[in-house]
């Protein structure tokens, strides 16, 4: 969302016409408004769980977890153009890291998050190295193989993973004195993780590295000619991406309280890609829309028809892609930015005019 708003703002500057100062006020205005909007959204996210039942709080927690995972995939697929059908495996790696540390070694839940991040980053980089040799559909196939193999690998290493039976976890207790129950406490833990993830992603993607990633995606030869180390950036994109998804996996292990091989089927990996595409593949805000889609659309489809829920799910997917081919945020974002710009420009022009009128 941010990127598109910014893009529209900079693209609009020369067209703004009247004066440089006006355009300056403009973008300051937009930046200021954007911060206000972000703060309002955060305030809403903090207030929301107190207005909802425990079950809905739990559902929203899952939405945010999926959003973090989708955000990870967006970095790789959206910004860097590497298609992964295997992010469910890294989600599983994060979940099992947290589960094994908590269950076997009694590590407190919050301390498993950096561990999951580190392990999944390392796994992503290691996987990214050979993956460098594969482009487009071939990389998709390699990651698909990873996703298909994951449940069986988890069963194979059963001394660690608990095999078929999985690992049962005690849900983290909220710190005493806060007056929060477990569901709401976990909601805030996940919300904090999501905000950090979005901030980090924005920092990475809106700077030098982000431009390098996009350049590699759009024109690898030109990017290399410009002096961008494609191999290094692609590997780092893989590692950063799996880091995000792994942290999401670790959070899911805490929130669900149980991990088993069946939890990480191929469908999970596909869901991430679907969520990413529906939300807007090269956007940060799109991850949230993707999380909402992953969590709610299958349930809605089931409510509409018991007999063919997956047909309805497919139909919903088609409708979304047909109406908004660049995803919800990718398609609506520029339009929204244009609208706000138009409104702002008019109001500031009016303000200028009234000020001029007052001066004369």
């Amino acid at each position, binding site marked *: 969302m941010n990127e598109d708003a910014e893009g529209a703002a900079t693209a609009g500057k020369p067209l703004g016409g009247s004066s440089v100062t006006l355009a300056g006020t403009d973008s300051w205005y937009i930046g200021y408004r954007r911060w206000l909007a972000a703060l309002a959204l955060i305030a809403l996210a903090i207030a929301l769980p107190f207005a909802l039942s425990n079950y809905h709080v739990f559902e929203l927690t899952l939405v945010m977890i999926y959003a973090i995972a989708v955000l990870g995939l967006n970095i790789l697929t959206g910004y860097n153009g590497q298609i992964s059908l295997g992010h469910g495996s890294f989600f599983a790696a994060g979940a099992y890291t947290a589960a094994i540390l908590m269950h076997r070694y009694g590590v407190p839940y919050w301390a498993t998050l950096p561990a999951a991040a580190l392990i999944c980053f390392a796994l992503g980089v290691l996987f990214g190295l050979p993956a460098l040799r594969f482009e487009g559909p071939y990389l998709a196939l390699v990651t698909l193989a990873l996703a298909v193999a994951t449940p069986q690998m988890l*069963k194979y290493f059963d001394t660690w993973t608990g095999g078929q039976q999985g690992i049962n976890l005690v849900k983290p207790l909220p710190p005493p004195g806060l007056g929060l129950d477990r569901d709401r406490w976990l909601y805030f833990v996940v919300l904090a993780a999501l905000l950090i993830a979005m901030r980090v992603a924005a920092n990475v993607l809106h700077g030098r590295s982000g431009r390098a990633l996009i350049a590699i995606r759009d024109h690898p030869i030109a990017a290399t000619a410009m002096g961008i180390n494609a191999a290094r950036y692609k590997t780092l994109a893989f590692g950063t991406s799996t880091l995000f998804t792994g942290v999401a996996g670790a959070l899911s292990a805490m929130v669900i309280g149980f991990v088993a091989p069946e939890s990480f089927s191929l469908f*999970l990996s596909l869901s991430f890609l679907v969520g990413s595409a529906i939300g807007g593949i090269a956007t940060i805000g799109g991850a949230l829309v993707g999380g909402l889609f992953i969590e709610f659309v299958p349930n809605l489809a089931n409510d509409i028809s018991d007999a063919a829920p997956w047909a309805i799910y497919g139909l919903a997917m088609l409708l979304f892609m047909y109406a908004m081919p660049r995803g919800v945020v990718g398609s609506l974002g520029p339009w929204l930015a244009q609208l706000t710009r138009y409104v702002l420009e008019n109001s500031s022009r009016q303000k200028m005019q009234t000020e001029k009128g007052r001066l004369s």
Partner: protein
Amino acid sequence: MTVKKAIAASLSAASLVLLGGLAFAAGQYGPGATDTEIKIGNTMPYSGPASSYGIIGKADAAYFAMVNEQGGINGRKINFISRDDSYSPPKTVELVRQLVEQDQVLLMFNTLGTPPNVAIHAYLNDNKVPQLFPATGANQWNDPKHFPWTMGWFPNYGIEAHIYANYILKNLPDAKIAVLYQNDDFGKDYLNGLKAGLGAKASQIVATQSYETTDPTVDSQIVALQGSGADVMMTAAIPKFAAQAIRKIYDIGWKPTHLLSSVANSVGTALKPAGLEKAVGIISATYYRDPTDPQWKDTPEYKEWLAFMNNHGLSGSITDSQAVVGYSYAQTMVAVLKMCGDNLTRENIMKQAASMHNLSLPMLLPGITLNTSADDYQPMKQMQLEKFDGTTWKLFGEIMSGT
């Protein structure tokens, strides 16, 4: 939360009044039960890798619909809410929380699969919601001390293996036993059950071999087991590997007495792929009447089941033994609810479920009954042995029980 507290408060108030000697004409109710309705929650894999078991949920729903058509249970209609979890444990957790917290079901019934049930085990017990008759054969559902809100149903893998041990002790006392088992909890439940059943004679197990579900074949394991000189073989495997074992044993000319886990005794999915002539003489165990077995065709119980299937849009599944199992699960649930009378609290549900006494169900084998008590949450403990004659399984011997 507040609703729950209010309900708990009104319940305790109600029981105080009862203690005071004032009898109520109306019933006592937990969440999800009223004068006119009993809400039951369930999850099933209607889609995904285990979707072939979805017929159990369809049979449950059809049976409850039939009970409702006939007036319900003590005038109350069953509202059976069954959702699709695709055999994915996180989805099960989500759906069960929805059923318990949003839909306010009285109890969870017949959730399918070991991983989905493990995932909701602690949640349901923490919240004191009955987890009745999960459709899984793992050994852990009979643990009333630690999990007083969870009760299993069919003979678990350990009990079945125990029955094979009893058969060996009685009929083949000098047996040298070889075991092929799947290297996970399912396979180990069988191996440990066999050892426990053999007791002092467990040393007669001369060789064990395991396989991983990722192995391409079990040929080398079979050859190794033959090399041990064993004359009795127990196979604790899923259909694919059971078929490979049956074929290999036949092909290398080994002729042990072959005991085959009931998980893999389906003619269609295990014996046919192996070759029916290679499966002649194999022994397995069962607890229900196989709908394809001609010996039941003329019994009133089978005819009633067939009519039920045909009248409820399930005529496409009349050869599916899982439809018999689902029918029997639903009958157990109805029997427990009838025993509860007008006291439909969660506490009383568990109390009545733990008071089953010689409950017999029409489509179980004649002589098999369900029994429970406050410290025995394993309703079914009996099975009967059967031998494959080249076309069908033929029951033989007595009803046997294991522990």
